[in-house]
C-alpha cells in the first residue's frame, strides 16, 4: 500500500464516494485494507451492483407465455420442450471495444458465452448488435474492422455460429461505439447448474486459464511503489483466447453431466472477487480462500491484483468434498488448470489469505448489500421543440427512384454481408434461416421438432425522439421480426446502453426506456429473463442516442414451418398486413433526404400490432405464405425492394395514398408486414385477416426484372432489379475495401 495516501483517498480513487467509504467503516468497524476497498468498490459499482438501475429493473415482467427462469443466475431462460430450456443473455462490451476493438469485441463474446455455459447450457448461437459513428471516416472504419475481426476471431474458433445481429451508424456513437453481444444456449433441465456455494468444507476451485494482470488498470492506485511508475505491468484490456474457451466449454459440459460439483460461476468483471462474493452470498455461506493456490501466469502479483484480475476463460467451482481429484483430472484432460484455492465455511465471512496473513475478511452479505441510489429524472428541455417540428411543409422529392436507391445504399439499410460472411454462421449444422435471409435467424434443435427464432433490435433514433415509444417499438419490432420467420415471440433479454445517469435528462431516458420495454413485454406476454446495463456512454459533447437493445427469442412449434423474406417465384400475389399512416418523424428518409432527425417517432398501437402479428404467424403455420418481411427503416418501398432482391425477382406494386407520396413509400409506420403468396391463397388469407382483425390488402404481383411501384396512379418507382441489387449489396464492401 502507498502509505502516504489515506484509505479514504484510495476509496475515492477507486470510484467510491465518501458515504460509501463510511458504510465500509461501519460494516467492518475498522479501517479497510486496500484489497477490501478494491472488493467493495467493484461489487458496489454500477457494473456489478447496479445501484442506480436496480430499482428500475424491477419493473420488468419475469413471467410470460412459457415457463420461465429469470432469477438468481447470470442468465435466464424459458422451457420450450420437456426438459429443454433455452438460456440466453445479452451483454455490452462498449468501452473495451472503443479502446481496443478486436480484443474488446472478442472478450465480450467470451464473457457472454461463459454466462450461458456456466448454467449448464451448451451455446448454440451468437448475435451481435453494433453501433458506430458515421461510416464516412477512417476512425469508424478502423473500429468496425476491428470489432468484426474480433467477433470472427473468437466466435469462429469457439465453434458457436454467429447467426444474427445488426449494425447501425450514427454520429452520436463516434467516440463511444456499442458492442452488444447475445448468446443463446440449450440446456437439459436435468443437468442445469447453479452458482450457489453450499456445504461447509466443500472445496472451492479456480479452473481454466491462469491468472495474470489483465484488466486491473482501474485499481492501479493500489500499486505499491516499485510498480506504480511502470503501467506496462498492468495491461488494462483483457486478452481472450477462444481455443482455451472452447476447451473450457467442453470440460464444463462434461463436468456438469456428472455430480462432482455443487455450484459453478464464470469469472467476468473483477474475477475472483465477484465470483467468491456472489457464490457465497447466494448460497448463504462464507469462504476461506488462500490466493497462494491460484494458478498464476506471472510472478509477484499482489493480493488485490489477483482478486481484481479479469484474466479470461476462468470459472470458480465449488466441488463436493473428496471429488476434487475427478475435477482436476477432467480439466487436465483438456490442458486446463484446476486448483483448490479454499473451502466453503458455515460462518458467512469471506476470508482471503495471502502468504499466511489475512488480506481481506468481510461479511459476505455486505458485498451484495451495496447502496441504492434514486436519481432525479428530467425530460430534456430540447425534446418538446424537437417533437413538435412541423414536417408538413417539406418539399416532395423530384426523383423517387433516386430516393429509393439512396435509402437502399445508406449503411444503415445496405446489406451487412461484408460482416456476416466473415462469421461462421453454419457451424453446429443447425442454421435454418441464415443471416440475410429473413428478419430473424432460425436454428433447429437436434432431437426436438421445435425451432428457435432469434433477433436483436433497436432503432435509437426513435428512442432519442421518445425513449418510451422507442423502447416499445424495439420490443414490437423484435417480435414482428420473429413472426416474419414463423416464430412465436417468447422471451426477451435486453442491454440498456445510456449516458451518465447522474445527469437528470440521461436518467429520464433510461427510466422511460425501461418503462417502455416493461409495458410492451407485458402486452406481448414475454418475460425479460436476463440483460445488462451499460451507463456512462458519452462522447465529448453529448451522450449517445439512448439505445435499449432488445434481444428476443421465438419458438417454432415445428421448425419446418419457417418463412424467409425472399419472393419465391414469378406471378405470385404481394399483400400488405397493416396500414401506412401519414407520419415521417424519425424516419431514415427524413434523415437522408432532408437531413432532419425530428418529429415524433411512428405511433405504436400494441393491440393493432398483436392482431397483425398473430394473423401472419397463423398464416405462416398454415402454409399460406411464400415470403414475409416487415416494414422498418426506409418504409414499405425498401421492404418490397428487399424481398425482391433477396429472390432476384422483380415486382409490380400499386399503393393508395395518405396524401403525400413520400409518406406512402417511405413512412416507417409500425405494425406492417409485406407477404407474398400464390393467387389461390388470397381468399383464405382474407378470411384469416378478418378473424384476427388485421388490415389486409393485395398490393401487387411478383415477376419480371424491374421493380415498379405506382402511387395513386403515378408510377413513381421503376428500376431494373440489377440497379436495385447493386445499390443494396455493395456500399459496405466499397467503404471497407482498403
Amino acid at each position: 500500500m502507498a502509505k502516504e495516501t489515506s484509505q479514504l483517498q484510495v476509496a475515492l480513487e477507486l470510484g467510491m464516494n465518501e458515504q460509501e467509504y463510511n458504510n465500509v467503516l461501519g460494516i467492518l468497524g475498522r479501517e479497510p485494507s486496500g484489497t477490501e476497498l478494491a472488493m467493495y468498490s467493484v461489487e458496489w459499482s454500477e457494473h456489478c451492483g447496479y445501484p442506480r438501475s436496480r430499482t428500475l429493473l424491477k419493473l420488468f415482467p419475469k413471467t410470460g407465455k412459457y415457463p420461465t427462469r429469470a432469477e438468481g443466475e447470470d442468465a435466464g431462460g424459458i422451457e420450450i420442450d420437456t426438459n429443454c430450456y433455452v438460456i440466453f443473455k445479452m451483454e455490452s462490451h462498449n468501452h473495451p471495444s472503443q479502446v481496443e476493438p478486436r480484443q474488446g469485441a472478442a472478450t465480450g463474446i467470451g464473457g457472454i458465452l461463459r454466462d450461458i455455459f456456466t448454467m449448464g447450457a451448451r451455446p448454440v448461437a451468437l448475435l451481435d448488435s453494433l453501433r458506430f459513428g458515421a461510416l464516412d471516416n477512417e476512425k469508424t472504419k478502423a473500429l468496425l474492422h476491428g470489432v468484426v475481426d474480433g467477433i470472427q476471431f473468437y466466435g469462429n474458433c469457439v465453434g458457436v455460429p454467429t447467426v444474427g445481429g445488426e449494425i447501425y451508424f450514427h454520429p452520436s456513437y463516434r467516440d463511444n461505439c456499442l458492442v452488444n453481444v447475445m448468446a443463446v444456449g440449450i440446456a437439459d433441465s436435468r443437468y442445469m447448474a447453479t452458482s450457489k456455494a453450499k456445504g461447509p468444507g466443500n472445496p472451492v476451485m479456480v479452473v481454466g486459464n491462469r491468472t495474470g494482470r489483465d484488466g486491473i488498470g482501474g485499481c492501479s492506485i493500489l500499486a505499491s511503489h516499485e510498480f506504480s511508475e511502470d503501467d506496462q505491468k498492468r495491461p488494462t484490456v483483457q486478452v481472450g483466447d477462444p481455443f482455451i474457451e472452447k476447451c473450457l466449454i467442453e470440460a464444463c459440459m462434461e463436468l456438469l453431466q456428472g455430480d462432482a460439483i455443487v455450484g459453478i460461476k464464470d469469472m467476468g468483471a473483477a474475477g475472483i472477487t465477484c465470483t467468491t462474493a456472489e457464490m457465497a452470498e447466494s448460497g448463504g455461506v462464507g469462504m476461506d480462500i488462500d490466493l497462494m493456490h491460484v494458478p498464476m501466469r506471472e510472478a509477484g502479483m499482489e493480493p488485490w491484483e489477483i482478486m481484481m484480475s479479469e484474466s479470461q476463460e476462468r470459472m470458480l467451482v465449488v466441488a463436493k468434498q473428496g471429488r476434487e481429484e475427478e475435477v482436476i483430472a477432467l480439466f487436465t484432460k483438456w490442458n486446463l488448470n484446476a486448483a483448490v484455492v479454499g473451502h466453503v465455511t458455515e460462518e458467512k465471512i469471506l476470508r482471503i489469505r495471502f502468504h499466511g496473513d489475512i488480506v481481506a475478511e468481510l461479511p459476505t452479505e455486505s458485498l451484495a448489500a451495496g447502496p441504492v441510489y434514486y436519481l432525479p429524472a428530467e425530460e430534456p428541455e430540447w425534446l418538446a421543440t424537437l417533437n413538435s417540428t412541423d414536417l408538413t411543409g417539406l418539399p416532395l422529392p423530384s426523383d423517387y427512384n433516386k430516393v429509393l436507391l439512396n435509402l437502399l445504399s445508406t449503411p444503415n439499410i445496405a446489406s451487412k454481408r461484408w460482416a456476416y460472411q466473415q462469421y461462421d454462421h453454419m457451424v453446429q449444422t443447425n442454421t435454418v434461416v441464415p443471416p440475410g435471409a429473413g428478419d430473424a435467424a432460425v436454428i433447429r434443435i437436434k432431437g426436438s421438432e421445435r425451432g428457435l427464432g432469434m433477433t436483436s433490435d433497436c432503432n435509437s433514433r426513435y428512442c432519442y425522439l421518445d425513449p418510451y415509444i422507442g423502447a416499445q417499438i424495439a420490443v414490437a419490432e423484435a417480435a414482428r421480426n420473429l413472426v416474419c420467420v414463423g416464430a412465436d415471440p417468447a422471451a426477451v433479454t435486453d442491454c440498456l446502453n445510456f449516458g451518465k445517469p447522474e445527469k437528470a435528462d440521461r436518467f429520464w431516458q433510461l427510466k422511460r426506456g425501461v418503462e417502455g420495454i416493461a409495458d410492451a413485454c407485458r402486452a406481448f406476454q414475454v418475460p425479460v429473463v436476463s440483460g445488462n446495463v451499460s451507463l456512462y456512454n458519452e462522447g465529448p459533447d453529448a451522450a449517445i442516442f439512448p439505445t435499449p437493445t432488445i434481444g428476443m427469442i421465438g419458438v417454432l412449434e415445428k421448425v419446418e414451418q419457417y418463412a424467409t423474406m425472399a419472393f419465391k417465384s414469378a406471378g405470385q400475389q404481394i399483400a400488405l398486413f397493416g396500414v401506412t399512416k401519414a407520419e415521417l418523424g424519425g424516419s431514415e428518409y427524413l434523415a437522408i433526404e432532408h437531413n432532419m432527425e425530428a418529429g415524433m417517432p411512428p405511433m405504436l398501437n400494441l393491440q393493432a400490432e398483436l392482431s397483425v402479428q398473430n394473423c401472419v404467424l397463423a398464416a405462416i403455420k398454415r402454409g399460406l405464405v411464400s415470403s414475409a418481411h416487415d416494414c422498418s427503416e426506409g418504409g414499405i418501398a425498401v421492404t418490397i425492394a428487399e424481398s425482391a432482391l433477396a429472390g432476384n425477382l422483380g415486382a409490380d406494386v400499386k399503393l393508395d395514398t395518405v396524401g403525400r407520396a413520400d409518406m406512402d413509400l417511405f413512412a416507417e409506420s409500425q405494425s406492417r408486414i409485406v407477404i407474398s403468396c400464390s393467387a389461390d391463397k388470397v381468399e383464405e388469407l382474407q378470411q384469416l385477416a378478418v378473424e384476427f382483425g388485421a388490415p389486409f390488402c393485395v398490393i401487387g404481383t411478383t415477376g419480371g426484372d424491374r421493380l415498379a411501384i405506382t402511387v395513386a396512379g403515378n408510377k413513381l418507382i421503376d428500376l431494373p432489379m440489377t440497379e436495385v441489387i447493386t445499390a443494396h449489396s455493395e456500399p459496405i464492401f466499397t467503404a471497407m475495401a482498403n
Partner: protein
Amino acid sequence: MKFGVVVFPGSNCDADCHHAIATVTGMEVRDVWHEDTDISDLDCVILPGGFSYGDYLRCGAVARFSPVMKSVVEHAAMGKYVVGICNGFQVLTEAGLLPGALYRNDHLQFICKPQYLRIERVDLPFTHFYEAKQVVSFPIAHGEGRYFADAETLKKLEDNNQIVFRYCDAAGNVTADENPNGSLNNIAGICNERGNVLGMMPHPERVCDRLLGGTDGKKLFKSLVESLHIQAISMRGLR
C-alpha cells in the same frame, strides 16, 4: 462398417460430422480422442473442421503430432479411407499424407458462404455416386484455405488426376472470379495417388439435410459406405 471422427482440442465440426454421417448412412460412428491410438476397428477416419490447438503457429501444425496421427498414417498405409475436411485437410497436408499446403486466403479474411464445386473425379470411393463434372454446392468456412504446391507437384497432381474438387460457378466454369481464396488451379480438394485419402476445404457435412438448405453432401458419405461394401466383399473373396 464403422466411421471414426477424430476429436482434437479445438475441433468444432466433430459433432457435425458425427451427426451427418450417422443420419445419412445409418452406420456406426464413434468419436476418437486425439490421444487414442487404437483405431483398428475403423474403416474410415474423418479429420473434422475446427481450430485444432487454436491453429497456433499454422493451421493443423500441432494437431499433426497428436498420438492418434501415427495410427491414422498406418490406417492410410493399409489402404483404408481417410477424409480431412477444412482443418482436417490442413492436418493431412501438415502430416504429409497429402501434398502441398494451405495458407492465408488471398483477401486475408475468413469467409463463410455456399460455394459451387465441380467434381473432377467420380471413380473414387468418396465420389462414385456423383456424375462426372457434376456441379454441387457445399459451404466453405475458412480463413486459410488457399491451396499451394510447387510447380512440379502441381503438375504431378494434375497429371495423376488427384484433384477431386475445384471452385467454379453455377454452370461449372472454373474461373478466377469463382476462386474464393486464391487457391492454385481453383483447387478445393485433392486425394493421394492411391486414392484412399481425401482432403477438402468445403464442408459436405453441412449439406446433408434439406432443412439446412442442401443435400449435395449426402452422396459423399453414401459413396464411402458403398465402397466399403465392395471392399469387404472383395476381401472375403480373397480368403
